[in-house]
């Protein structure tokens, strides 16, 4: 398929005439004409990508980012306190099967899950469309899905607002309100994205239509969920129900008041088991009282299927040990109740592993969206400054200087402290405060480009400014900005972690920074597992993005180019 925006690249000689993996020494011109050592020409980005894949550090980074992205997309399906299948018996004796996990998925979860699965399939599919085209279509589809869901949530909040005008209230109390809202918002987003010239019209309609087909049902089923309650374990313990969970049977916001901080590998039932033995540590327990304690394990609410093996194991282990001190018996009990929380819990009794998985989504989405915002703002302002120069440059550069004058973290702390604490606001403030680098870079590039012949001729034939700036000049100047976006994502993730650490992050959201802040927050106590895992996750993510960025930077470095002939 023809590629309008790729054309300027195709006319230029490929940046690298040598694929780095190949061991061809020198080739003479004659040999080249004979067809020896001739390589298939590839696009600029394909060439750069091939180089990146040869670097071990970059491969490590890509692997880690892949893992984080996978969890970001599928965490609700991997870690959820709602069972996948829940069979309960009603009082009338009927058996009812429900699927709570799917009932409680919200619109974002559904859309992200479907979209991620589709994206993986599309990128790997062996179809005849260039990968860069597929990637571009995917980026726009993702943007459309994100905008649709965010707009849907915003509209819902507006309709539910206390001060909403009467016509909004009438609509809101109407019968099919959610369905109408879902269709309306999706249609508007469809119209906007189908009109954007990012691919052929047929493809655009198809892609935007596919997204709308996902967002309408996703918003219909997931925009307004009942408040979450996790009463399943009580029912299972009472023997009236049976639950099948996914991999990690805990939601990040699931907490029990009787349960506080647990170390990695400790069990959910540990507090009950601990409170079971009331004797002082040095008291001797004979086999009779131990047997009574073992019998009482069954009354603690542990499901019958789990408690019976536990009891028999304890009986077997303690047969020859009696009499035993109460302290030793407690230890035996601690060991016996199996691990439930691989990474322990935080001070509210919420699973750390589950929170870490959900936090992947927060980090990745804030990193990507805020960098996107920053690049768009920065490129626009930088292009205007560089193209016009003079007083436009003078005035706009003062704006740039404002953001350079104070450390960004200061501004971010002020903004995050005073504005509403949610994910969207955080994306916007990080994006709006970090565009300066891109703007300065594009400005410098455009200063060089604006006197070049192709720009002069574009101007002389009377092309509109938009076309000169973004169609002719930008493709020649944006490479480095796109490569540096990798570092920008890393910095945005770092900012999010720091703000969350300071308690200024999105509320009610699992976040690595917030987990980390709990490691030392209690009076003088230090909780190693809350310090090590979330911190390591931030570190590895930032490191991976940096390594990828460095490899990409090397890949587009013209000094790497060597003559083969």
């Amino acid at each position: 398929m023809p590629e309008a925006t790729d054309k300027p690249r195709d006319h230029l000689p490929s940046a690298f005439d040598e694929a780095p993996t190949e061991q061809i020494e020198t080739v003479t011109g004659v040999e080249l004409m004979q067809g020896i050592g001739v390589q298939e020409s590839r696009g600029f980005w394909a060439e750069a990508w091939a180089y990146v894949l040869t670097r071990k550090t970059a491969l490590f980074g890509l692997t880690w980012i892949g893992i984080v992205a996978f969890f970001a997309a599928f965490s609700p399906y991997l870690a959820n306190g709602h069972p996948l299948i829940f069979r309960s018996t009603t009082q009338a004796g009927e058996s009812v099967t429900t699927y709570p996990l799917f009932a409680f998925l919200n619109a974002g979860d559904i859309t992200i899950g479907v979209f991620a699965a589709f994206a993986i399939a599309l990128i790997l599919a062996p179809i005849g469309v260039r990968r860069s085209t597929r990637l571009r279509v995917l980026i726009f589809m993702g943007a459309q899905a994100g905008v649709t869901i965010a707009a849907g949530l915003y509209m819902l909040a507006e309709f539910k607002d206390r001060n909403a005008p009467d016509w909004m209230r009438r609509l809101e109390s109407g019968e099919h309100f959610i369905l109408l809202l879902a269709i309306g918002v999706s249609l508007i987003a469809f119209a906007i994205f189908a009109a954007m010239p990012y691919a052929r019209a047929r493809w655009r309609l198809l892609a935007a239509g596919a997204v709308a087909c996902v967002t309408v049902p996703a918003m219909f089923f997931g925009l307004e969920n009942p408040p979450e309650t996790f009463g399943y374990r009580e029912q299972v313990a009472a023997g009236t129900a049976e639950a099948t969970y996914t991999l990690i049977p805990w939601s990040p916001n699931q907490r029990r008041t009787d349960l506080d901080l647990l170390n990695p590998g400790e069990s959910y039932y540990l507090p009950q088991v601990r409170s079971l033995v009331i004797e002082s540590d040095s008291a001797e327990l004979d086999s009779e009282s131990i047997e009574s304690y073992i019998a009482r394990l069954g009354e603690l609410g542990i499901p019958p299927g789990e408690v019976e093996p536990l009891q028999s194991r304890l009986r077997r282990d303690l047969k020859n040990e009696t009499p035993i001190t109460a302290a030793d018996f407690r230890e035996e009990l601690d060991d016996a109740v199996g691990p439930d929380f691989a990474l322990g819990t935080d001070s509210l009794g919420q699973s750390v592993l589950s929170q870490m998985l959900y936090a992947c989504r927060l980090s990745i989405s804030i990193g990507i969206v805020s960098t996107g915002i920053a690049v768009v703002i920065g490129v626009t302002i930088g292009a205007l400054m560089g193209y016009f120069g003079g007083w436009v440059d003078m005035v706009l550069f003062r704006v740039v200087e404002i953001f350079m004058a104070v450390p960004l973290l200061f501004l971010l702390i002020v903004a995050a402290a005073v504005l509403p604490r949610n994910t969207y606001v955080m994306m916007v403030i990080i994006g709006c405060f970090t565009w300066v680098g891109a703007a300065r870079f594009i400005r410098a590039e455009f200063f060089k480009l604006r006197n070049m012949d192709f720009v002069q001729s574009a101007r002389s034939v009377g092309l509109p400014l938009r076309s000169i700036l973004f169609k002719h000049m930008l493709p020649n100047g944006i490479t480095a900005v796109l490569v540096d976006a990798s570092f920008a994502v890393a910095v945005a993730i770092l900012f999010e972690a720091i703000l969350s650490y300071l308690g200024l992050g999105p509320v009610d959201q699992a976040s690595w920074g917030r987990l980390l802040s709990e490691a030392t927050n209690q009076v003088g106590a230090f909780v190693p597992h809350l310090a090590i895992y979330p911190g390591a996750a931030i570190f590895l993510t930032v490191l991976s993005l940096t390594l990828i960025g460095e490899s990409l930077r090397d890949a587009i470095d013209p000094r790497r180019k060597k003559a083969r002939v």
Partner: protein
Amino acid sequence: MISYIVRRLLLMIPTLLGITFLVFMLVALSPGGIGASLSASGGQMDATSRAMQQAYLEDRYGLDSPPVIQYLRWLGRVSPIKFGKRDLVDPNGELISYPKKLDPPPLWDWIAGELPEARDAPPVEWPEPGEVVPEDDETPAEAVQRVKSRTHRRGTSDYIRERGRYVARQNEYETALVAYAQERGIKAAVTRDGKLNEGGLEGKEPDKASPVWERVQAAGERTMAAYQEALNARAESVAVFEARPFRQAGFPIIPGVLSVAMPDLGKSFSRSRPVSDLIAEALPITLLLNVIAFPIIYLIAIPSGMLAATRQGSWFDVISGTFFVALWAVPVVWAGVLAIGFLASDEYLGLFPVTGLHSQGAPDMTFLPARAGDGDWRAGYILDTAYHLFLPVLCLVYGGFAVLSKQTRAAMLENFNQDYVRTAKAKGVAHRDIVFRHVFRNSLLPLITMFATIFPAMLAGSVIVEKIFSIPGMGSLIIEAIGLRDREVILANVLMIGAVNIVALLLADILYALADPRIAFD
């Protein structure tokens, strides 16, 4: 060169205005606005006193005017060029400005035929030095000053009290007017959040048949009475001010209209202390941290960058590069938490103090290590401070190595490929001399500009480090101030840091020009 520096310094002004305005508007946007923490601190109070206090606070800090006006007022105080009457400086160094103007209540013409005039206050005359009986061991001049201060204090507090009363009455009157407007169905007179919009009622005749009218009239008359009282109190306060109980601040340029005075950063809401004092306490601590950290970064990063460049591709090059990048990626919050947890906490190694800048009793220590009376060595003030600063400085420096050493390496490599190096090699200059005298000197240039990029990053980094280690520097100050929406402290901090930063950028540019004769600024 001089004209370049002057131009840059002049361009600083719009930048600083922009940044403070941006921050001010952000703070003003916050729910509850700027005074949120002030009014929240009232505790248990009956409604009238709360209204009085609210009115007083809003009036005292000008919170009732729109944000842009508040910003301009702040600007007026900070700017060294002042308009209007010069302020007075009381013996404690606090600035006292001309008593504030008093606006008449809204729609006063509904209640009274004409605005009341202030009662004439007789001009204040001060006693001669001999006329006051000195207390304790005062000199006659001090005794007179005491009388002056007391008169001024009395006049001011009278006016503040009357003003507060008037504002509280005015609020009641406005509530009554809102009720009236709602009863009459005049929607334009009530804003969305239920406040009075004066314009909606202006020019209309009051409808005295309304059932709410009596309430409006009663509240209005009380307000007018309070207005009269406040006017009188103000006239007396003005008379005291005109008699100049204290010396005047600054220098006059056009007397009574234009003067030049020291910028006034205002007084913190939350701590009731001048902001300049708070900054004077906090800034040296932050600067100390940075002044210790900077040489460490340069001393480690530059030699390793040089070594990596001279042995390009060697194991040292690879390992130092990877290691520094890995260090750069360690988030400072993580490093701080781990350092506190494993190195400082008593549960683990317990090698270092967890928080603070000094041990208890540090003011009594000798400055240098010394042998005490019982023959034991005591660490002394300076070693104690170093001991406390070890972990914070560690957290501050480790991230800076990567950028600087990478830059050194790149600059050195670039210069190694230059013709003059080949020439030097060809004529037999020792390798050592090539590296240090030729290549390194020419590679210094980018390192100078690096200063400009590292400095803001270090300032930001020290915010987090100070927060983690509870060090009372600028970072702790600003984070606390933001939490309390303390307008003056936030703005003053932003102004200070902005100014320091821009000057650092300018300094880097000037150094660049000094170091490289090829660069000229016009």
